[in-house]
């Protein structure tokens, strides 16, 4: 018997709701739909979905207050669907506890990839055994967390301690967007200066060490105004959610 993941879609635009739920059903997810915030909150409470897709612009409740309310008692992954191109709003949603965001219009493959990534990261919480510390691998890059060594094509890349911390943090969250603020507080501590210039200088140096062409990166992508996203760990892509 295959266990299906339950996805709750909160979206007031009916056509988008139809299209997303069709795609997800095709890919072996169980789909719940809500077109108002109130309905969504009661569904989250009663059905406990495995992942939530949330449109920020709902008719009755502000999207961010839904994130706040859910985060008060649950760590269920939330992917924000945002029609607005305003970076500030995305950052605000991420800082409130949303796991990732996807901007309208989005393709089906992009949506499925985001859902997979978020599910994978949420499941990691339950498997905190030391065995789970396995290297990050993507293309020819290998990052061994226990030895703190990064290699590309078998060749060791020398990183400064700060650079290693940044890359390791991104690799642990590979596939997910990580805001500047999250990296700053994780690497430099909670009292770090909110000016992200130091991070961006470090990032530029990392890029020069890792990428063949820094303007067309293969491993670490920039989401301008929001943060960075490291390419998804290839180890997990092979195990699709339906196979579990």
């Amino acid at each position, binding site marked *: 018997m295959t266990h299906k993941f339950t996805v709750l879609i909160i979206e007031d635009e009916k056509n988008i709701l139809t299209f997303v739920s069709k795609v997800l059903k095709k890919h072996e997810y169980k789909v719940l739909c809500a077109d108002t915030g109130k309905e969504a909150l009661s569904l989250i409470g009663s059905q406990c979905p495995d992942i939530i897709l949330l449109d920020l612009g709902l008719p009755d409740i502000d999207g961010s207050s839904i994130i706040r309310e859910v985060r008060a008692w649950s760590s269920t992954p939330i992917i924000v669907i945002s029609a607005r191109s305003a970076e500030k709003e995305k950052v605000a949603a991420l800082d409130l506890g949303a796991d990732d965001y996807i901007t309208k219009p989005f393709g089906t493959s992009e949506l499925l990839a985001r859902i997979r990534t978020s599910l994978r990261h949420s499941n990691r919480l339950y498997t905190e055994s030391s065995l789970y510390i396995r290297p990050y691998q993507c293309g020819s890059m290998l990052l061994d967390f226990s030895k703190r060594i990064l290699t590309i094509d078998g060749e060791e890349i020398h990183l400064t301690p700060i650079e290693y911390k940044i890359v390791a943090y991104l690799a642990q969250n590979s596939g997910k967007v990580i805001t500047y603020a999250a990296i700053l507080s994780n690497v430099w501590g909670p009292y770090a200066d909110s000016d992200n210039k130091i991070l961006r*200088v470090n990032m530029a140096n990392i890029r020069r060490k890792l990428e063949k062409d820094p303007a067309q990166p293969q491993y670490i992508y*920039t989401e301008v105004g929001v943060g960075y996203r490291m390419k998804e760990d290839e180890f997990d892509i092979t195990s699709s959610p339906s196979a579990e």
Partner: protein
Amino acid sequence: MKNLLKNLGTTLMFLAVSSVLSFLFFHLGNKNPANIALFYILALILIALNTDGYVYGICASIFCVAAVNIFFTYPFFKMDFTLDGYPVTFLVMLAVSIITSTTTTRIKKQKEILDERERKLAETEKERIRANLLRAVSHDLRTPLTSIIGSSASCMEDYETLADEEKLELITNINEDAGWLLNMVENLLTVTRIQDDSGKVKKSPEVVEEVISEAITRMRKRNPDIKIHVSMPQDFLMVPMDATLIEQVLINLLENACVHSQSVKPVDLTVASEEDFVCFKIRDYGIGLDEMQLPYIFEGKYTCNTVDSYRGIGIGLSICKTIITAHSGTITASNHENGAEFTFTLPKEREYEYDA
């Protein structure tokens, strides 16, 4: 209310200052009331210049006459209307304040009228640009919409009779046109980010390579197999800009170079850092630009003489121009021996310079 307080304040301040000066002058030995009256006349002129309307000036002149009479002419601290020439002093002071008030009021009114006229002119100019843009846009939007509506309708109506390949073709068309529409709308949205009143943008320092990489990533979403060759200086380079807008410029120019040059060779994007500005050069190796249209290329009228004329690049280029101008940069287009070349610059600002 605030205005009233301000006027009252100015009046009282000038009167107080002139009174203090007069008393000092008087106590230092000069007992000539004519000299002291001069202080008050100066105060009157300043009051009339710095307040609105006549009332303050007239009140001040009455005060001045009274003050000179009471404090500085014998008998001191007593009103004495029998002094010689008293009506003359009063009239002169009144006249001074009224004339000055009239002149300043008139000047102020004229300035207001001029400002108003200028604002109206600027507004009509803005309206005209907006109307032109709207006209061009609605024309450009209607064509792909016609195709989308037509294709989807025929798909629904003849669902049974159409072969699978035909359906697929129609749906592919819909998808393509929708993608084109999205590009258009994104272009238009960027324009709204340029602040209306000042025509300037909100700048923040951005890493050049990050902006370029995001532009290329976004463009690959729609055209996965385009080839771009980027060369840029090794140094860490930060330039103040609105990243979303500059991304749009890069996307527009790179996409033109890839799609309209009718060439499969990779497009070159070169970034060079000069003393005061950063220079971006996009060079393709295709058919080049129409020399005849070159001078008007950024005015939103350039059209390709290829078959699919609605996929013109006019609006995209005029939006590039708007964005770069709002950044106080320059943008130029030219042909080189093997194709077309677009160059734009963004000014560096001293305070943003960073020694990495």
